[in-house]
C-alpha cells in the first residue's frame, strides 16, 4: 500500500511517497500563487520519481497553509501534528521540534509515541520567520542559500538591536554604511533569529532531544546560534529538514489507512 503526504507551504510545496514505512520518493518545488496547482505539480514530480501514478496511491494527507485547497487528498492534518510526527519517526528520541518556515515559527513537544503534547507558534509577526532572512538577504544582495555559510565566516560580533523586520532592514543598511562586514551582520541576524525561536521554545519548555526543521534549518548559521541559545545540541535528521512536514503527513496517511482497513 502506497501513501502520500503533501505539504503546501507559503514559499515551497513538498511531497513524500511511502510504502511499508519506507520513503519511496520526495519532491520540493517553489509554491505557485495557487495552492491547488502547487500541490498537483509537486505530487506529479514525486510520483514521476517513483514511477507511479495517482491510481497507485491508497491514501494521501495534506498539510501546510494551503492544505484546504488540495483536491486529491483523503484528509488534512495540522502542520503541528505532521512536523511532530515526522521528526519523531526520523529520530525516536526527539521530544522537541523547532520548525521555522517561510512565514511562521513553531515549537512542538511530542511524547514517546510521537503525539503532540504542547505547542506554540508565531505567525503574527515576520520577525523570527524565514521571511526575516529573505528580506535581509535582499537588502544585502546575498543569495538566501548562501546566508548560512556566510554567517559561519563571521569574525566580529555585530548585534542587531531591532526585532522588527522593517526596522532591522534599515539597521542593516546603516551597518553596511558604517563599514561592517556582511558576514558579521548576517551572523548578528542569525543570532537574533535564533534568540527569537529560543524564547518561543522556552515558553513551553524544551525537552531534549531537540530537532530543527523547516527551510531555515538548512541555514547553518541559525542552527549553530539556536543550539547555543537553547543550551542543547540540535539533532540532525537523516532527511531534508524541509520535507519533514510532508513526511509526517505521509506517516499519518499510513496510520489512517491501517485504521480504515481494520
Amino acid at each position, binding site marked *: 500500500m502506497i501513501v502520500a503526504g503533501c505539504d503546501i507551504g507559503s514559499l515551497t510545496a513538498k511531497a513524500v511517497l511511502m510504502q511499508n514505512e519506507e520513503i519511496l520518493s520526495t519532491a520540493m518545488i517553489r509554491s505557485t500563487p495557487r495552492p491547488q496547482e502547487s500541490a498537483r505539480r509537486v505530487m506529479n514530480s514525486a510520483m514521476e520519481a517513483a514511477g507511479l501514478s495517482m491510481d497507485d496511491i491508497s491514501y494521501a494527507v495534506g498539510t501546510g497553509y494551503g492544505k484546504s485547497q488540495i483536491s486529491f487528498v483523503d484528509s488534512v492534518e495540522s502542520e503541528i501534528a505532521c512536523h511532530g510526527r515526522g521528526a519523531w519517526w526520523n529520530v525516536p528520541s526527539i521530544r522537541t521540534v523547532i520548525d521555522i518556515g517561510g512565514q511562521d515559527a513553531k515549537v512542538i513537544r511530542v511524547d514517546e509515541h510521537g503525539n503532540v503534547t504542547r505547542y506554540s507558534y508565531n505567525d503574527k509577526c*515576520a520577525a523570527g520567520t524565514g521571511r526575516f532572512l529573505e*528580506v535581509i538577504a535582499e537588502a544585502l544582495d546575498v543569495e538566501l542559500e548562501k546566508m548560512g555559510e556566510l554567517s559561519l565566516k563571521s569574525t566580529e560580533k555585530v548585534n542587531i538591536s531591532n526585532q522588527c523586520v522593517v526596522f532591522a532592514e534599515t539597521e542593516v543598511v546603516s551597518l553596511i554604511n558604517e563599514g561592517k562586514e556582511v558576514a558579521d551582520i548576517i551572523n548578528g541576524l542569525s543570532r537574533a533569529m535564533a534568540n527569537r525561536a529560543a524564547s518561543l521554545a522556552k515558553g513551553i519548555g524544551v525537552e531534549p532531544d531537540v530537532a530543527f526543521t523547516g527551510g531555515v534549518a538548512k541555514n547553518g548559521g541559525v542552527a549553530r546560534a539556536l543550539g547555543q541559545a537553547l543550551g542543547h545540541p540540535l539533532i540532525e535528521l537523516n532527511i531534508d529538514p524541509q520535507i519533514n512536514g510532508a513526511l509526517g503527513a505521509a506517516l499519518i496517511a499510513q496510520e489512517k489507512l491501517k485504521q480504515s482497513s481494520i
Partner: protein
Amino acid sequence: MSIVAGCDVGSLTSKAVVMKNGKVVGSAIIKSKVKPQASADKAMNDALSAAGLTLDDVQCCVGTGYGRNKISFVDKKVSEISCHGKGANWLSPAVRTAIDIGGQDCKAIKLDGRGKVEKFVANDKCASGTGRFLEVMAGVLGIDLSELGACSSKARSPVTFAASCTVWAQADAVKLLNNGTPFEEIGAGINTAMASRVAILVNSIGIEPAICMTGGVAKNEGVKNALEKIIGHRILKVRKADPQLAGAIGAALFALEDLNGRGS
C-alpha cells in the same frame, strides 16, 4: 523681546520653529538627511530665513527628537515626550491625551492642564502603527504618502487586513493589487489597519478627552476618522499650526521657559 527656537530631528523629517514673544514667526519641515547635524542645520536655517532672522538672534534653543544629541547649536536637550506634550498643550490647551505618530514610533501621552506629562506609552519596537507602516504601504500602492488619507473617503468597500505586521500586510496588499482591487479600497484598509493598531496603544493608557493628534500622520484624515470610530471619541483638529511641528514648538516653549528662568 524674546526670540527662541526649537529643533526636532526625527527619523523621517526634521522640524524647526522660531518663536518671537511667544508667537511662531518661522518654521520648517524637511526630509531628514543621513546625518542628524545636517538635518538640524538645514531645518533651522530654513525656519530662520522664513522669520528673517539669523542664529545669532536666537537667545535660547532647545533640541529634541531621536537625533537631538547630535545637534551642535542647541543650549539644551529635552525628550520628545515632554516636547510633544508641551507642544500639544500650546496647540490646543484643552488636550489631556495627545497621540503622536512619528516616522518610526507612536506615543500616547496624558497631560495635565499645563501640558505637563502625567503618563505615557510608546511603541518603537514594531513598525506597525507607526508612520513607517504607512510609508511602506504607500510605496506598494505607488502613491505619495500624502495621497493615502483621501483613499478612505473615496473607497466604497475598504479591504480588511488580517495581519498587523507590516511585512505580512505588504504581501497582502501586493496580492490585492494583482487581483485587480482598486487602490483606494486598499488604501482605505491601510488607514483603518493603522488606526486599529494605534487604538490599542491609546486604550492601554486610558483615554481622557480632549484628544488631539500630532505628528505627520495627523494630516491623514482617513487614519484620524477611523481612529475616532474605534476609540469612540472625537479628535480635536489642530489649527494653530501644522501638527507635525508639535515637538519643535514644545522645544521652543522649553527654550522660552529657560530664557525666562534665567532673567528672574
